[in-house]
């Protein structure tokens, strides 16, 4: 690794990823989804994980989020080793510290927007009110709509509200704009940037769309299960200025 890839920031690292590999055994063949990944994530930064489909982005994010375990290597959240934790501790970790946003919004269809958010806020000590969280994503007038009554972009914004309402220290987003048209995608990105700045939440966004990388503090590129590059954006673009 060359020196340009070393971070130059005063903020402390909140995630340390050390030599993480993930190997899927598919009969005779081994699929190396991750191959010795080292990575630090810093408090309050907006990082974009960029790479072609199949490069291992989701696998990495899922491991960071405690949804999946690596084949080898360690992941630390602060001083605490994620990769050594049991399921109950991991659940507590997700509950307290993490917010997730996925490509397919993953809302609970039987709950209203407000309730989808409340579902999460009821789990933690000092959450936003569901109303505030939804206002944050611009959906103050859709509180009592069920997912079936919302557009895709609105559903994704509910998902974001649901993720941020508990004031997580980290927000993990896997292709949040993947299923949306570009206009709606920009709206969603704007919301994410806004949340990151306002609540100083560490935000990691996965995308295969290089244009989106321009809104990030830091862009981490992946290839074949390895980190192939890393850059800081001198000037961050506003999501509104993106074109794709």
């Amino acid at each position, binding site marked *: 690794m060359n020196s340009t890839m070393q971070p130059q920031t005063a903020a402390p690292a909140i995630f340390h990823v050390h030599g993480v590999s993930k190997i899927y055994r598919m009969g005779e063949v081994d699929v190396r989804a991750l191959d010795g990944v080292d990575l630090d994530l810093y408090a309050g930064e907006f990082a974009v994980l960029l790479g072609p489909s199949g490069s291992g982005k*989701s696998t990495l994010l*899922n491991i960071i*989020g405690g*949804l*999946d375990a690596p084949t080898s290597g360690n992941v630390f959240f602060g001083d605490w080793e994620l990769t050594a934790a049991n*399921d*109950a501790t991991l*659940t*507590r970790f*997700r*509950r*307290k510290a*993490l917010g*997730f946003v*996925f*490509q*397919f919004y*993953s*809302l*609970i*269809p*039987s*709950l*209203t927007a407000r*309730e989808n958010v*409340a*579902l*999460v806020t*009821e*789990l933690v000590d000092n959450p936003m009110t569901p109303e505030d969280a939804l206002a944050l994503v611009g959906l103050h007038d859709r509180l009592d709509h*069920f*997912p*079936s*009554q919302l557009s895709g972009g609105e*559903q994704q914004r509910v998902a974001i509200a*649901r993720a941020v309402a508990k004031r997580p220290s980290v927000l993990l987003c*896997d292709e949040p704009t993947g*299923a949306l048209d570009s206009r709606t995608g920009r709206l969603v990105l704007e919301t994410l940037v806004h949340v990151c700045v306002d609540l100083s939440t560490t935000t990691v966004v996965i995308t295969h769309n290089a244009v989106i990388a321009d809104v990030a503090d830091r862009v981490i590129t992946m290839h074949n299960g390895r980190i192939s590059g890393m850059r800081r954006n001198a000037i961050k673009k506003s999501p509104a200025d993106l074109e794709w």
Partner: protein
Amino acid sequence: MRTLDHKLLRDIGSSRGQIVAIALMVACGVALFVAMLTTYQSLERSQRAYYDAARFAEVFAHATRAPRSLGPRIAAIPGIDALQMRVVADVSLDVPGRDEPATGRLVSIPERSRPPLNDLFVREGRYLQPADRTQVLVSEAFADANGLRVGSTIGAVINGRRQRLHVVGIALSPEYVYAIRGVADIWPDSARFGIIWMGEQALSAAFDMKGAFNDLAVTLTPGIDTQTVIERIDALLARYGGLGAYDRTDQPSHRYLSSELSELRVSVVMVPAIFLGIAVFLLHLLLSRQVGTQRAQIAVLKAFGYANAVIGLHYVLFGLLIVAIGAVLGIGAGLWSGWKLTHYYAVFFHFPILRYHAGIELLAATVMLVILAGVAGSLSGVRAAVMLPPAEAMRPQPPARFRPSIIERIGFRRVLSVPTRVVVRNLERAPLKALLSCTGLALGVATLVVGRSTYDALDLMLTHQFYAAEREDAVVAFDRTLPLRARWELGRLPGIIRVEPFRAVAVRLRSGHHSRRVVLIGLEDDASLRRIVDLRGRVSRPPRNGLLLTGKLAQVLGVTPGDRITLEVLEAAKPTMAARVVATVDEPIGTTAYMELGALDRLLREGPTISGAYVAADARDRNVLNAALKRLPAVAHVAFREQTIENFRSTIAEVLAISTTLLITFASVIAFGIVYNTARIALAERGRELAVMRILGFTRGEITLVLLGEQAVLTGAAIPAGLALGYAISLSLSVAYSSELYRIPATVSRATGAFALLVIAGAAFVSAFLVRRQLDSLDLVAALKIGE
């Protein structure tokens, strides 16, 4: 098609738990049905084969003493095929090792040939040898109950003279499959009543019946009117003290056996049919839901251009495979237990001939039925999915439409936590689905209730008969009618507390073309040991101005209170008269007519006479009393209460016990299958939602609650419905169970309710445990990869 076949195999592999559970349920329904039905068919065939092989007579008659020269004239009656003239007499027996006197029925058989009718099956030892006049064969049940073997000796008082009889053989006869002393006795009592077959010469000599007979049995040529033959026989025997000929319906053993068999038919045909019906319904329900969970995949297949028929066939194959496993297992298990069961009953009924028969039509029909259910179930599941426009598969499925549930709308919103709202709304969103699940679970509860309620019914019968109706400590029966004052002699015996005399007389009741030989019992007006009580505990008094009939008897005769019927007394002066039916009583056991004792005496134009007495006795003096009774010459037999109850248990109760056990076992499996499958299907339907909740930080316990909460609500609702349904089925079964021998009352005890609850709760807990294990291994990452 090849790839689709791979998919089929993989689907089967991934849901093998459910497949096994559904298949097991089908197997249980099929097994029960096949086992019970083949048992019944086999017993019927065995009975027929036995009757044929032994040339069981069709019409029977008794006389006081008729000359053998009457034989040719009887044989000349048109329609008579073969006849047998015998000497039959009941004597008091002295059986080694038995305290109370036993009754032996001496039946003559030819020394030099086998009987032309009612032939014997010699089970042990041999048939008579002409040389020795003291040789006898003894009925198997009596021999078993008294430890008699070939070579044993029994004492008999024959025409006042004590004789020693040597047992040379143990035998069976179709005439005494059940040895029942006469119409007055409801149950066989194999310990105290036995059949002794003795040489004709010896018996005729002993009873001064040389060249005479007192018992006639005939077979008929097919297609002949039995009633005309009976009338001709009666006409011929009238001069010789003929007691009225009767056909097999009034022959005690046959009557009892066919009652038992018809009892069995209800428990072996109706109940398994209901079970199979339930299993078939559940199969349909579960398959359609199972296939329904694959909705999205079906849409994709369609989008790719697979024809509806191909997709339909794919899922039908899936259903068929489950059914095939179930049917094969079920038929295998059914044939095996049917064979076992038939054996058991053949031993129980003392059938020397066993014909196990499993009709191919029956098996084929069963298989067709379940296959149909399998196909219909898979198709109804796949239909909804096939109707879907393929475009649906191209984008993520739109979330289903929801709205706040009724409970929330009426103001409970605040009370419900968010996960609870998920439960409530899921239930409300698909009320039909919830209703069907609930119905399935309720059927599970109902099968358990029906399975066990037979025990309750027996208990109720027992309690009713022996604690409400017959409360005596012993029944003493005389060998002839005695003057009323005999009661005072009984009363002076040691330990006797109370004596209630009765008069029992064999009668034939006629109304129109219906007739029955029954016993008419005369009881004192204030009788308190032997009471006439219906199932609700209402006591009837014996009437002075007519007859009180068991409800079932009135039904068989087609009469209601107020009707007049013909009463033919079959004893003594044999008067025939008209009598009025005053009332009926719903007794669960037997068919009897009652009158007040004094009124009966007047009817019979006798002085005050009695046939025996119900007595209450001090338990401590039991042995002394026993010895004293044994010394009284007129006492034919004494039935002590405990023995009678024991007798009841070992006959009627035992017939039902084994099938009930089988029923309960299968009901439990079916109930478990339903509960487990309902939970598994719910898991398949909600898996993704639950995975998302896990990712959001819900613990395993919490999502388990969401899933099982729904199940708990459904199960909770199903339990009262199932109890009610079970009771309703029991009620309709009790109507079907009604025979002349006994009526099984509809009753569901608390114990049965508790049992059903326990099994369902147990099944729910085990299923919860299994589902929880599935939830623990829920693949969170995989849930995110799919769009739906």
